[in-house]
């Protein structure tokens, strides 16, 4: 027969496990409720993405940006929105720069990488020096798309790139 301590320990562990299963139901409760609500409403699959304002905006960008094109995306990596935009816009080449990127570096990257679009994810935030310079430069033509961000078509010929010695 089991010795007392083994019996006690194993039964205690089983009891804790049982309580933990009840906690699991509580923990996943919100997800289960959301799942049930969506199933009842038929609001599943791609329809879920439509709830996110970024998605329709990026979809309209995808209709404009050719698949072979490169774009520069200004956003904070930590926000987690950049990976979504990159996923939706793939296989277009994606270059991430921080929103506060200086103008000279932004223009350098656009030129070097032959990027033909500039996308700023959050139009509510104050523009950084690079974005401000882009906005006032004739090389950037704004795309008139409703959404959370700003987008520009870049004319590389007007970037005025060159060496100044």
């Amino acid at each position: 027969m089991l010795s007392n301590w083994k019996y006690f320990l194993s039964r205690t562990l089983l009891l804790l496990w049982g309580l933990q299963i009840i906690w699991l139901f509580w923990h996943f409760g919100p997800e289960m409720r959301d799942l049930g609500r969506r199933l009842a409403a038929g609001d599943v699959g791609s329809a879920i993405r439509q709830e996110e304002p970024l998605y329709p905006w990026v979809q309209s960008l995808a209709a404009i940006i050719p698949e072979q094109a490169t774009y520069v995306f200004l956003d904070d990596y930590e926000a987690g929105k950049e990976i979504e935009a990159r996923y939706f816009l793939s296989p277009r080449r994606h270059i991430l720069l921080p929103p506060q990127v200086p103008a000279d570096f932004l223009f350098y990257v656009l030129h070097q990488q032959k990027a033909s679009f500039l996308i700023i994810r959050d139009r509510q935030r104050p523009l950084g020096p690079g974005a401000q310079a882009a906005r006032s430069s004739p090389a950037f033509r704004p795309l008139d798309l409703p959404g959370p961000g700003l987008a520009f078509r870049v004319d590389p010929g007007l970037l005025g790139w060159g060496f100044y010695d």
Partner: protein
Amino acid sequence: MIESAAALLRLLLGLGAVFFIGYALMALAAPDPRGFNPAERTALSFGAGAVTVTLWMLALTWWGVLFSLGLILGPLLVPAALLLLSSRGQAALTADWRALSSGCQVRLRDWDWLLAGLLAALFLFAALRATLYPIWAWDALATWGLKAKVFYISRGVDLTSIDAHNYYPNLVPLLLSYLYFCLGQVNDHLAKLVFPLWGALLLTLLYSWAGRLGLTRRQALGLTAFFALNGTVFIVHLYIAYADLALAYFTLGAAGLIYLWLQDAAPRGSLPIVACFLAGMAWCKYEGPPLAATVILAAALTLIWLHPPRWATRLGQLAVLLTGLAAGYLPWRLFAIRQNLEIGQDHIQSFYPHQLLDAIAYLLQALVYPYYFGFLWPALLLALILSGRRLWRSPRLFLALFIGGNLLAVILAYAVAPTAAQEFPSYVRATLDRLLLHITPVAALLVGLGIKELGAESGPHPDPAFPPAGPDAPR
């Protein structure tokens, strides 16, 4: 509605083809058709099939051939069908058919129903959660799902347009893109069905290996439920589309079969199957090759330590496993070199002693923090105590060495990670649960041995799950 049903059918046919190819390979590897029961053969077949299909897709890109469903499946299905028409294939099919037609009646009693019901509820939730929601989790969007989409659109392993840990192995992205070819479009919610399927196959293996260890049906079912419904990590990985669940599945398949082989309880032909699973480990995650190497190393050390009969010959037999590891590792490595892909060197730059101490503390916390794995790791500690001398005088030493070695490796990996001091805690938080998930199913096997000890001490049980396993007595 009809469109959704048709898409589901196409997906199921695509998954069925993977099983079919793997089943043929299993029949080729295992000379005794009754060595594996149908559930085991099915669970192992998917892994073998997934490795074969995705390596074949890599080969197609290597030869400059664009992906199409016909080119992916045709050259694999034809030899698989021929294999199943051979005498060995026919024997496997006949044995499984007989087993299924004679032994299908499941005799569940009282608590068994509760355990089976909890598992069924879990998988209903996970399958719906996976297939009704599009890809949204971080690494799925940033790496695995992104690559799958790009491979589908470019019809090859084309990494020129993305920078998403391009050097990571590609079993999971290629399998997802294969499913997109089956579906005829990028359907990133339906294709996620493969993840709960992978979880179910992992649990099938755990249940089967537990039965082969000598646990009763209820004990094996209890162990399976104890693993699946302990903490949140395994459950969440059933639907977030990360590669870690696949790695955990391959690791359990390989380590479980090696343990049975060390016990002289593995079916004939197990070593080639282990080799295939080691290939799967190496081909599905960056952590896979070292993890696979520790399976071989722990097996070798166990043989050397225990000195069982013919130990030197058996040590030589482990060389078969190295070929599996090479088969999973080298093709991608050579491809990456050929494509001039930058290989990550995240973990070989320096050694940070303060991170070593922090990592030990974080690891110990994670092992006892119920949010991650519930009470599984404390149960492992209890199982180790119950093992007593058997721990180092029987093949269960292999399991302990594998688990202990990998926990040590996790600590060392954090100690050499070049991370800023303020970022280190969040870096550990974002990765530790996943690293533990890779080895937790194997830890559950050790818990199973503890359950067996407790069961044996409380008296004989009339309901063995499987024929008795080989001896696990002190040598």
